[in-house]
């Protein structure tokens, strides 16, 4: 089985290196095809591993070679495929393979076609390292690796110039890329501190060694580790207050948004919490905090999605919101539920983004939904796909999102955290509203794009075929819930609902479906029959607050970025040059001046010498006299 592990892991690396050879050349179609095949190969190997695990229940290990061995630090490149990893691998490689195929269409006219595939495959490799490593430092390799790939891909169109926030809220691709990288780095420091804590207290960074040592560690230390690791998770999964980069990351090409900023990378934080479940189940206080923060992010992000006009940003906020759901579940101890929602979300959210990609192509990269409308006539298949994805996202039966989201709500109720339940329930309504606001604005109503001189067209068939498996999964994934639970609880702790909750299952279904359908209905009423803008609403304080993301990006710029820049200038010009260096030069000057003054003593003039000699004699005699007198 190890060979499958290596194939799954290294096929994307080979793919990336292969594409990198041609990175600076003009488009070569073969690069797109071969990379897609290699990623698909990785997918089949992952499926093989999953099947093996289902049949035998044996965890696969593989160790390559020593990495960092010094003192007591002993880190090898070790990989392990257990139940959680297998699920993650299948999800990651499936979405990756489909996005690779789709990208052949989406990037077909891009001059850096080959470079794009090199980065994209490098991302898949990093993501697999992240989920397959058997130690925290191995995870950290993948963690930073996906960060760099994300940076490269957000800034893929690096040559675009900076705009003001009014023109483009993300300023420019290279700006957004740097923001994402730096913000993630802040969180990475937390993860690194967690790693140090584990190392010095356990002596090993392997998951299993750490989990085995947990009973011997004191509670305060566990809390510290739990917080440190979660800070890392907050960066990757864009949790408040480190969330602003995700919406700006939409500057990247849309397949990137689908793969990295929706389906896979941003769920790495959730993965970390699920992975460290033996730790978090020991520190329910931290878990509760995670759940509360996740719940807050769920409604906070959903609220911003309500008013945004940017096709991709709405989906980005919804991703943020759904990540909040996952954290809520994981924080409350329902790890498998979080993983289930993670997988289901990966399918329908990737589908949603790729549909948005089709729309963007049809609209010549116009993103303002207020300038679209009526597209269902021109792109019925995309309409269907986006509809499915939105239904799944809204949690409508029998789509995948229904099963996963409903379970999260049940968990929140079961834990008697009714506040969390209520907020998540209400957010479900908001989710349904903004999702269908988007669908109706884009596909229904009057055709507002004619003013722009655009002639929309449907995407190429193979692009639609690449999306089809995601559409199917968005519909049927939920039906495999029983099988999923049976499989995953061999590894993750099971989560049992109390009888009280079990009794209320039908009540939950009705209430949740009710609010979701209400949301869709309101969206239909408001947007399905053309766009009627209300300046009074758009000028209201609340609308502006939401539209400007609660002014948080501006606040960050004013409170952190600008002062840092100003302080840096002061450090350089005022302190380094005016104080530190001036002191050094001052000392040198003082030496020079004293030297210059004392030089006059030796001007070669005999009478001056005699004068000084006389002074000296008198001076010394005086001192001698005084010392005699004093004695």
């Amino acid at each position, binding site marked *: 089985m190890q060979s499958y592990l290596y194939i799954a892991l290294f096929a994307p690396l080979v793919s990336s290196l292969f594409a990198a050879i041609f990175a600076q050349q003009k488009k070569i179609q073969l690069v797109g095809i071969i990379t897609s095949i290699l990623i698909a190969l990785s997918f089949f190997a992952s499926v093989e591993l999953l099947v093996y695990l289902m049949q035998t229940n044996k965890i696969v290990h593989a160790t390559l070679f020593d990495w960092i061995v*010094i003192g007591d630090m002993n880190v090898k490149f070790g990989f392990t495929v257990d139940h959680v990893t297998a699920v993650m691998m299948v999800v990651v490689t499936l979405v990756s393979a489909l996005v690779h195929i789709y990208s052949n269409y989406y990037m077909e006219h891009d001059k850096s076609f080959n470079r794009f595939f090199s980065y994209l495959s490098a991302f898949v490799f990093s993501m697999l390292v992240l989920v397959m490593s058997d130690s925290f430092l191995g995870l950290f390799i993948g963690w930073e690796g996906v960060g760099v790939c994300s940076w490269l891909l957000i800034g893929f169109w*690096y040559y675009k*110039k900076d705009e003001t926030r009014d023109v483009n809220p993300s300023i420019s691709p290279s700006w957004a890329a740097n923001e994402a990288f730096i913000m993630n*780095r802040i969180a990475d*420091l937390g993860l690194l501190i967690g790693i140090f804590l584990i190392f010095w207290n356990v002596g090993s960074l392997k998951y299993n060694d750490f989990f085995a040592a947990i009973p011997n560690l004191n509670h305060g230390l566990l809390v510290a580790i739990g917080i440190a690791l979660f800070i890392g998770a907050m960066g990757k999964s864009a949790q408040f207050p480190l969330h602003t980069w995700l919406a700006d990351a939409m500057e990247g090409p849309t397949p990137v948004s689908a793969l990295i900023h929706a389906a896979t990378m941003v769920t790495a934080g959730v993965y970390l919490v699920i992975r460290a479940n033996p730790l978090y189940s020991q520190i329910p206080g931290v878990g509760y905090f995670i759940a509360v923060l996740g719940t807050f992010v769920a409604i906070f992000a959903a609220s911003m999605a309500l008013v945004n006009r940017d096709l991709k940003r709405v989906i980005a906020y919804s991703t943020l919101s759904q990540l909040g759901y996952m954290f809520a579940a994981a924080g409350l101890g329902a790890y498998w539920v979080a993983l289930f929602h993670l997988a289901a979300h990966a399918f329908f959210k990737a589908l949603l983004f790729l549909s948005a990609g089709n729309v963007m192509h049809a609209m010549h990269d116009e993103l303002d939904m207020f300038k679209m409308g009526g597209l269902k006539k021109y792109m019925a298949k995309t309409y269907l796909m986006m509809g499915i994805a939105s239904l799944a996202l809204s949690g409508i039966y029998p789509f995948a999102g229904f099963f996963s989201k409903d379970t999260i709500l049940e968990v929140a109720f079961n834990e008697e955290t009714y506040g969390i339940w209520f907020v998540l329930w209400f957010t479900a309504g908001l989710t349904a509203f903004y999702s269908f606001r988007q669908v109706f604005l884009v596909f229904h109503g009057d055709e507002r794009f004619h003013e722009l001189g655009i002639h929309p067209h449907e995407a190429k068939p193979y692009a639609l075929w690449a999306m089809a498996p995601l559409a199917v999964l968005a519909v049927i994934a939920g039906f495999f819930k029983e099988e999923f639970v049976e499989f995953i609880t061999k590894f993750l702790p099971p989560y049992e609902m109390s009888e009280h909750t079990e009794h209320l299952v039908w009540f939950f279904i009705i209430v949740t479906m009710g609010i979701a359908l209400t949301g869709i209905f309101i969206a239909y009423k408001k947007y399905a029959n053309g766009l009627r803008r209300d300046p009074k609403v758009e000028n209201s304080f609340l609308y502006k607050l939401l539209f400007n993301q609660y002014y948080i990006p501006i606040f960050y710029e004013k409170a952190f970025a600008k002062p840092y*820049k100003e302080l840096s200038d002061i450090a*350089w*010009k005022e302190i380094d040059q005016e104080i530190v260096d001036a002191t050094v030069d001052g000392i040198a000057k003082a030496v020079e001046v004293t030297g210059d003054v004392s030089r006059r003593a030796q001007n070669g003039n005999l009478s001056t010498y005699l004068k000084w000699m006389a002074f000296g004699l008198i001076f010394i005699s005086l001192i001698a006299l005084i010392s005699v007198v004093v004695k």
Partner: protein
Amino acid sequence: MSHILSILIFFPLVAGLLGFLINQKSIRVYGIAVATIEFLLSLWLWFGFDGSNPGMQFQEFIPLIPSFGINYYLGVDGISLFIIVMTTLMTLLGIVGLSVKKDLKNMIITLLFLEVAMVGVFVALDVILFYIFWEFSLVPMLYIIGAWGGDKRLYAAIKFFIYTFAGSLVMLVGILFMGYLYYKTTGHWSFALTDWYKMVLPLDLQKWLFIAFFLGFAIKVPMFPFHTWLPYAHGQAPTVGSVILAAVLLKMGTYGFVRFSLPLFPDAAVAYITPIAIIALIMIIYTAMVAYAQKDMKQVIAYSSISHMGVIILGTFAMNVEGIGGSIFLMLSHGIVSGALFMLVGVIYDRRHTKLMSEFGGLASVMPTYATIFGIMTMASVGLPLTIGFIGEYLSLAGFFKVSPILTVIGGTSIIVGAVYMLSVLKKSFFGPITKEENKHLSDLDLKEKFALIPLVAIVIWLGIYPKPILEPINTSTKALVAFMHKKAQTKEAKATIHVSKALKEIKK
């Protein structure tokens, strides 16, 4: 093989002298050939080195002034081995990538003399010999900055010389006093480092001597607030001067800490951990901010060096194998990465005769290979895992975490502030549209530049993925060093702080 160290010192010396006889036209080939042979010799040294032996190897001992115990005494261990290899490598690549036209012959001869001094510093085990090489290294660098530098080259060269020289003089006083102490306790003179190691000094004496050595090393590193000579030196020095300065000369200071301060004065070193750590934190954060404020690309790299040296200092004073070993590794990786970055700045300077980032913008579109290598080096500089930059930074911080978690959290911001200034260089110079007409037709890297840079890229990735060949000898020698310090330490505080790794404890049992 037994005289390999002498050969390493004297071969470039002789070759440099013979260089005066070589025709101006063939001097470049000659220089490359000599530097290549020297590099191969150092690889041979590595090949013959026994990684499992923690002690000094290839020792050579010739009495010079026996009555004062001054000898020609050389040796190499896992700590110095790779710094020597890096020195010969960076000298070679510096000569390969050389773009100066003026007085090329003198430049190459100067570089060969500089190589003599640098190798000498790292192999000398007699302290007087060490001091001679240490001071001798100033002369060629003074010449390089003063003769081939920019507009303010004389000011920069003299500042560099006098500043570091002043520090070294204080160190010399310390050296002489230490020799005198040895004479008083044993009755005969010796300046052999291995003899000095055996001396156990009372804490107050240790503290004075520690400070004397500290000043010499700190100015060289350079540590805040003794760092202001560095931006001038880098600002004025030609590319090759900056490469050698950043890659090797700065490492002499941190090497001095590991070779002298820690084993000679372990108690004083432990007693001074907190103030030194605070200076290191200032170096990390403050100079990173200053780097961010720069408008000149080269100055960013210059200040970033100080910031990274701060991490090295933290690792060195972690007093455990992870930290000290990590700091030695970081010395190497910083040498490679900063050397490469200075070369890269040199590339654009040769084309545009400016280093101001406001003059660039959009370079990635016209010079893709250049931008790619710059990007890789940037990632190595910010410590991305699987590049050479990560391992040293990670281990240094991990090591210091044992001493003080809180200070490490502050020091760990280096991964954030480092990303801020490096990414801003990329953004200002390489991304965005091409705004300047002059930049539209810049040529990408030529063959000479590729020859100089691609080996460095290969090393950055190779040692990032598989650092074992280097980490193993470092591990062996550092373990012995820490165990030695632990044994020698007298104060309770020092005994508790100096952390002997578990693996070694078990062996002892």
